[in-house]
């Protein structure tokens, strides 16, 4: 009876075989040439489930090199379970240097946030996308959507947004807020909060989007116009907070609400864990910082 050691298969660098990488690389080159257009690709089953970042992982795996420094975040934080898990995947299959510092990363794979710090033109951000089709809620059929994009027939989106205004007095989309890319394709930014949309416009970094389950890849080159859909009399407005970050005092970052007790006590903290740590390291202090230690609130050290 043969005795088999657990998991001793030799993986190709970054797991994907070279043929799959080539296929994805060809798709990426076309995607960058047609900003915001969803290119179909032959996505493979990955060792993580569909819906958990397989598209982002396949894009990262296809562009990643041995010299790259990789950052993986989920909800803006490096230490959320899925970010940890994806980092482990690349640690095992690619053994590249990892970082939590946005400024040190060559490639940032992200789920649902754009880092607060401005990205540079030597960086690439890879978004994990659950539903790449911005028209999906209005038109479930893929065949129909493809025609609407082909002929830029975006009337039904305009109508849906207008109906929103009629009902709520404003456009009530708060995340995955649709944008018009390079003046041509309506694009789904992925479920980033609308707070992050302005960062996409004319970004210095290359933005790549991977949807593994739906098998679509799209891209926005640097310095490309990305306009959140709105109307002249109802212009796009990102979210704002009255509060500042309880730990570092930041006024302009996306804040997570942390529930402290069952009496409505709460604390607001930067969602971007690296941004918050950097600010604290620079000496910025928020109103709840003194209490943070008593609260036992802090970042876990064993995320990496």
């Amino acid at each position, binding site marked *: 009876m043969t005795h088999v050691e657990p998991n001793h298969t030799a993986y*190709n*660098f970054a797991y994907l075989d*070279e*043929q799959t*990488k*080539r*296929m994805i*690389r*060809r*798709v*990426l*080159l*076309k*995607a*960058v*040439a*047609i*900003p915001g*257009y969803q*290119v*179909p690709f032959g996505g493979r089953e990955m060792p993580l489930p569909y819906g958990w970042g397989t598209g982002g992982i396949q894009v990262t795996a*296809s*562009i*990643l*090199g*041995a010299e790259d420094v990789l950052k993986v975040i989920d909800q803006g934080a490096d230490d959320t379970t899925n970010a940890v898990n994806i980092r482990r995947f690349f640690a095992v299959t690619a053994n590249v240097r990892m970082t939590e510092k946005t400024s040190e990363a060559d490639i940032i794979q992200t789920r649902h946030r754009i880092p607060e710090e401005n990205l540079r*033109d030597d960086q690439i951000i890879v978004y994990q996308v659950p539903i790449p089709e911005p028209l999906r809620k209005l038109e479930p059929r893929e065949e129909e959507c*493809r*025609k609407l*994009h*082909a*002929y830029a027939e975006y009337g039904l989106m305009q109508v849906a947004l207008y109906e929103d205004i009629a009902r709520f007095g404003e456009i009530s989309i708060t995340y995955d807020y649709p944008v018009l890319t*390079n003046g*041509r*394709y309506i694009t789904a930014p992925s479920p980033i909060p609308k707070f992050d949309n302005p960062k996409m416009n*004319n970004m210095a970094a*290359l933005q790549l989007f991977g949807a593994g389950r739906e098998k679509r890849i799209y891209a*926005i*080159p*640097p*310095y*490309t116009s990305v306009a959140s859909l709105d109307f002249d009399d109802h212009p796009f407005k990102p979210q704002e907070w009255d509060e500042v970050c309880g730990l570092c005092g930041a006024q302009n970052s996306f804040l997570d609400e942390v529930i402290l007790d069952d009496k409505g006590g709460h604390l607001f903290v930067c969602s971007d864990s690296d941004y918050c740590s950097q600010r604290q390291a620079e000496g910025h202090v928020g109103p709840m910082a003194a209490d943070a230690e008593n609260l036992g609130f802090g970042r876990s050290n064993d995320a990496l």
Partner: protein
Amino acid sequence: MMSPLVQFAGIKRGFQNPVQQTQRCFRSMLDAVSRPGSITTLPSPSEHPAGWTTGLTAAALTLFDNDTKIWLDASAKSDDAVAYLRFHCGCVIVDEPEQANFGVICSPTDGLNLNQFAIGDAQYPDRSATLFLLVEQLTGGAELQCNGPGLKVPTGISPIGLPPDFASQWIDNHALYPNGIDIFLICGDQALGLPRSISIKEA
């Protein structure tokens, strides 16, 4: 039937470290198409076919395989190159330009006609050809002003070795957006990207 070993005797070598070098080559090409007009350097394979350059060969080794159809112009289509591609890439070499996913044009001034290649269609603009044009120089020629995604400000490129009607052919190509073909200009081991999204004006 000839033994495969005999067929492949004398084929020139490809990348020494294919996994890492094709990745680096791809990143340079991704950079070239994300920042059109910027000049990037591609890693060099150990050898390359006669009439080709290291950069052109690197691009082929990185992107071609048995799922791609390649058209070669007369200058590119040496026996050496065909055997090299068959061995290293396993790609299909087609006779008609319109069937090709990729075109390799070593003599762009010999009647390059962008109209011959697939431009995609309204529902699938990605199903268009990508061309590699081998040029004499990437700088030093008459300036063409480029503008569009990837460019912070309008930027000039000045390659030497494109056909005299290139600008007007490109204007027609760009007018097809989102359809259209995408181009890499290659010289030696360097590349410059021109995606269809870029408009060109003669300066």
